[in-house]
């Protein structure tokens, strides 16, 4: 004799806000990505969003913050703020740099003259993998990315 449990409908109205600060060290990137991807999985973002869009775009933003914004200076830190619910993910990556011109720095790496370059694909991938990418200054240089959840 085996009984089946009363079925529990999935949680709606779940909202998670997460903050984490890391040193200017690229070795922390993978853990931050995993923590945030896990929140998205829990909220039923689709597989591709949690294995491609979020991990890659977030890795780009974090490595730019660490390498470009903070120039890997040990005294500087990167702050990550994430707010995620079943509608959308908003992630802000804050570095202690002087900021940059998002549109000015974004190049098209698919142009023939760029395709064999080693660098210059980060901002492009962020913009292709997220629904929006913004940059502004607020106690540091902030890059904000937004992704709408898909089933």
């Amino acid at each position, binding site marked *: 004799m085996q009984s089946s449990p009363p079925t529990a409908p999935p949680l709606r109205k779940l909202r998670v806000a997460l903050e984490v600060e890391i040193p200017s060290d690229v070795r922390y*990137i993978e853990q931050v990505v995993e923590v945030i991807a896990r929140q998205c999985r829990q909220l039923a973002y689709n597989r591709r969003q949690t294995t*491609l869009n979020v991990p890659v775009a977030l890795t780009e933003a974090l490595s730019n913050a660490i390498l470009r914004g903070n120039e890997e200076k040990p005294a500087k830190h990167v702050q990550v703020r994430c707010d995620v619910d079943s509608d959308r993910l908003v992630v802000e990556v804050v570095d202690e740099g002087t900021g940059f011109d998002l549109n000015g720095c974004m190049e098209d790496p698919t142009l023939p003259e760029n395709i064999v370059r*080693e660098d210059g*694909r*980060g901002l492009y*991938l962020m913009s292709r993998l997220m629904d929006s990418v913004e940059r502004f200054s607020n106690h540091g240089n902030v890059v904000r990315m937004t992704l709408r959840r898909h089933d």
Partner: protein
Amino acid sequence: MSFAIKKDGDIVVVDVEGQLIVGNRQELKQKVLDELERGERKFLVDFSRTGYIDSSGLGVLVSLSKKIREQGGELRLADLNDDLKTLFELTKLDTLFQISDTREMALQSF
């Protein structure tokens, strides 16, 4: 994440296990350049056990491919999952590399 390097005939096969990102791409680069230095010319990167790749990981593949070609060799890729295929398509790097569906097909292609 780690890189396992094996020889299959005269082909150097690199398995990328886990992520290929800014934190470890330098290690991949060095390992492959060491083999190139030793005289190896045929290289295959197998992505069957790879998670995600970031722009700096892609960049390392581009730069290795260039360096190997300069020595008359070739770098080919195999077994990209759908996510990785999307990355190569978005960046049009699928036009720069010879990409095989499986490791076996890639090995035979050399």
